[in-house]
């Protein structure tokens, strides 16, 4: 059978959470029932794939018969039998369950480089990566290129670090190559700590070999023999797939001694992070690998001069490394044809929050924010107004609706007070309180501050206290100015990136949403209806059916009323937990 059918089941973290494992089992069972099982590998290729982006519609299943691909969404085990009977065997797709227009719209404006093979290859089979040209770049570099050529290609491509800072990768490698030290290291930073970001997890889960290949090429370029992947323990599936991939790569001589028969030795160790956000900072990460508390130190000297155990060390982000093999294979010019003058190539973003199509996207640098949110993301979930998009996690800022036309690249986002960062994009709607969002991020950075330098340790604590009193209704007139002054001081005097950027969420929300802060401080009101202490709950008599749902859930006994009569909330007893608001099916509880 030449054109054997291919069945791909999304089994990234999102796919598995939606039931991917069970769907896989159901397919195996149904194929066996139809007598196809005996040669699953030979006649029908059934395999798992990593994330292909639109996790909101998981479990996604691709069926390819006679080279025609159909994609199904929201697949559950009980739907599998019909798909096998009608589509796999008789080649008549089950129309009702196929993806709809928004799935295609989600992909139309994307350009996939790093993610080009995520979602099509089997992340647990090295042969699957080899079949799409995997490890060809490494062969090319080892057989025909020199370390100098490799670095030259990287420099010409214009690739910049995808972890947030955007430092040119080729230059970093060159600095390290020029160091004459017998021991050098290359570290892959997979400590993706930004809340709201999952690019690195998805890349490792979907195509771990691309990261490994990038590391081996990097090691060859700088002259390293040992590498580490520092990965979060919170990503168990990514760790498992990475370990499996390393074992496979060693077997085929892409890692280890005399790689591909050349005089080049290199191997990679996996180090599990232990749950400290600050370890994403490179000097803290090094301290953590060395077995100490992950505390940053002053730079310079930069790690390329003095890094792990005092030796020259290159630290690259997962996405940066995953780009490398594609650049080598397709050429620097090809890569540089995407993006803007200063920000070349594509960037992966995690588009989440109050957006219709939430998921993982890869777009050329310089695309407008509006295209990302409305064309790819499909606009705001439910019929409410867009308010802002938070980019760059705790180090970034909130960009308001008025700036939706800006281009997404390193420079443009920095101009409006945010950053590209590692690539998290959380969309906020009119029901989100910007003061609460700022408080959320400060809670985070304050808790994650390592405590070494005073501006960050004490400064973030003070910032948080001020935000807490504002959201509790105790804000003072001078608080806004105080927040801003303190923010500038912390930015100017903190030791590492964590402290230097921690005030960004506050500064950007004050800049664009000052009136919301003022409503909290002066009117003691939360316009979005989020800050609990500033809310009053009341029954809206015209909608109340007297069903008693609110009365049953009220933990304080504050709701009274006879059945089928309009109920009432006693403001004296109300603890403002919002349980009645949640429980009411008739929108008869008002808050404000």
């Amino acid at each position, binding site marked *: 059978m030449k054109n054997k059918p291919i069945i791909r089941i999304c089994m990234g973290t*999102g796919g598995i959470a939606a039931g991917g494992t069970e769907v896989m089992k159901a397919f195996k069972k149904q194929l066996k029932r139809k007598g196809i099982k005996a040669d699953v590998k030979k006649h029908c290729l059934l395999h798992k794939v990593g994330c292909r982006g639109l*996790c909101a519609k998981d479990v996604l299943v691709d069926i390819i018969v006679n080279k025609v691909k159909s994609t199904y969404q929201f697949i559950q085990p009980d739907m599998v039998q019909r798909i096998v009977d009608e589509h796999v065997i008789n080649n008549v797709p089950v129309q009702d369950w196929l993806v709809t227009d928004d799935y295609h719209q989600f992909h139309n404006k994307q350009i996939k480089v790093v993610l080009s093979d995520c979602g099509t290859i089997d992340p647990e089979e090295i042969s699957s990566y080899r079949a799409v040209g995997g490890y060809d770049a490494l062969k090319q570099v080892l057989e025909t290129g020199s370390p100098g050529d490799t670095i030259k290609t990287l420099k010409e491509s214009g690739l910049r670090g995808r972890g947030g800072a955007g430092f040119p990768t080729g230059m970093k490698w060159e600095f390290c190559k020029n160091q004459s030290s017998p021991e050098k290291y290359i570290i892959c930073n997979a400590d993706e700590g930004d809340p*709201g970001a999952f690019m690195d997890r998805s890349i490792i889960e979907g195509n771990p070999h691309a990261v490994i290949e990038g590391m081996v090429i990097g090691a060859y370029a700088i002259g390293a023999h040992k590498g580490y992947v520092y990965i979060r323990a919170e990503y168990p599936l990514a760790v498992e797939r990475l370990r499996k991939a390393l074992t496979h790569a060693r077997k085929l001589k892409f890692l280890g001694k005399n790689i591909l028969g050349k005089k080049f030795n290199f191997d990679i160790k996996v180090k599990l992070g232990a749950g400290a956000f600050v370890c994403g900072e490179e000097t803290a990460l090094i301290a*953590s690998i060395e077995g100490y508390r992950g505390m940053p130190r002053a730079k310079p000297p930069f790690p390329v001069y003095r890094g792990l155990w005092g030796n020259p060390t290159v630290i690259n982000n997962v996405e940066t490394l995953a780009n490398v093999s594609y650049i080598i294979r397709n050429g620097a010019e090809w890569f540089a044809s995407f993006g803007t003058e200063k920000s070349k190539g594509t960037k992966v973003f995690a588009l989440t929050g109050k957006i219709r199509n939430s998921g993982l996207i890869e777009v050329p640098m310089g695309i407008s924010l509006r295209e990302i949110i409305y064309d790819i993301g499909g606009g705001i979930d439910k019929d409410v107004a867009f308010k802002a998009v938070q980019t760059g996690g705790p180090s970034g800022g909130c960009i308001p609706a008025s700036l939706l036309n800006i281009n997404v690249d390193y420079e443009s986002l920095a101009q409006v007070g945010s950053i590209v960062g590692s690539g998290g994009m959380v969309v906020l709607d009119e029901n989100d309180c910007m003061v609460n969002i700022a408080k959320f991020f400060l809670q985070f950075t304050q808790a*994650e501050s390592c405590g070494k330098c005073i501006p960050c340790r004490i400064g973030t604590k003070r910032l948080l206290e001020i935000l807490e009193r504002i959201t509790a209704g105790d804000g003072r007139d001078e608080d806004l100015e105080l927040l801003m002054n303190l923010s500038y001081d912390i930015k100017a005097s903190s030791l590492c990136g964590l402290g230097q950027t921690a005030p960004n969420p506050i500064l950007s929300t004050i800049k664009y949403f000052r009136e919301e802060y003022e409503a909290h401080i002066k009117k003691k009101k939360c316009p979005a209806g989020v800050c609990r202490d500033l809310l009053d709950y009341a029954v809206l008599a015209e909608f109340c059916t007297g069903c008693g749902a609110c009365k049953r859930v009220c933990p304080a006994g504050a709701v009274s009323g006879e059945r089928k009569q309009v109920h009432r909330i006693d403001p004296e007893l109300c603890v403002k937990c919002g349980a009645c608001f949640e429980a009411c099916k008739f929108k008869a509880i008002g808050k404000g």
Partner: protein
Amino acid sequence: MDKALKKILADFTKNEGNIISLLQNIQDAFGYIPEDAVYCFSKELDIPASRFFGIATFYAQFHLSPRGKNIVTTCCGTACHVKGSERLLNGLKTELNLPEGEHTTSDREITIEKVNCVGACSIAPVVIINKKVHGKISADKLMKEIRLLRKQ
């Protein structure tokens, strides 16, 4: 010396003498980091116990007291936050009758924890019950799962 501890000690020397890996191994073996184990290794390796505790309290992954049989972890990343993770957490505390500051039920059946982000933001809000990820979970659904845990 306990067999489990001996094995951890052997791994330690293999592992470039990394205290973080050592603590991770202890936690894997016991579910938490018992004080006695720390003192034992401190003596054995001639490293001050303060260094162990300094590291164990620095990293969020380490627990110095025993945890419950079932671990319920609520993701508190940005996407989960805007989709109501705080309500889930409060609901859990009420359902399990946990006093302020307490994270494990008195019968040591269930421990509730927070995590900064599990990177499953497109299916927010997310709760992980005994390593299984539950996406787009509502308070109702979560309480049902908790009651199920209690019954077992």
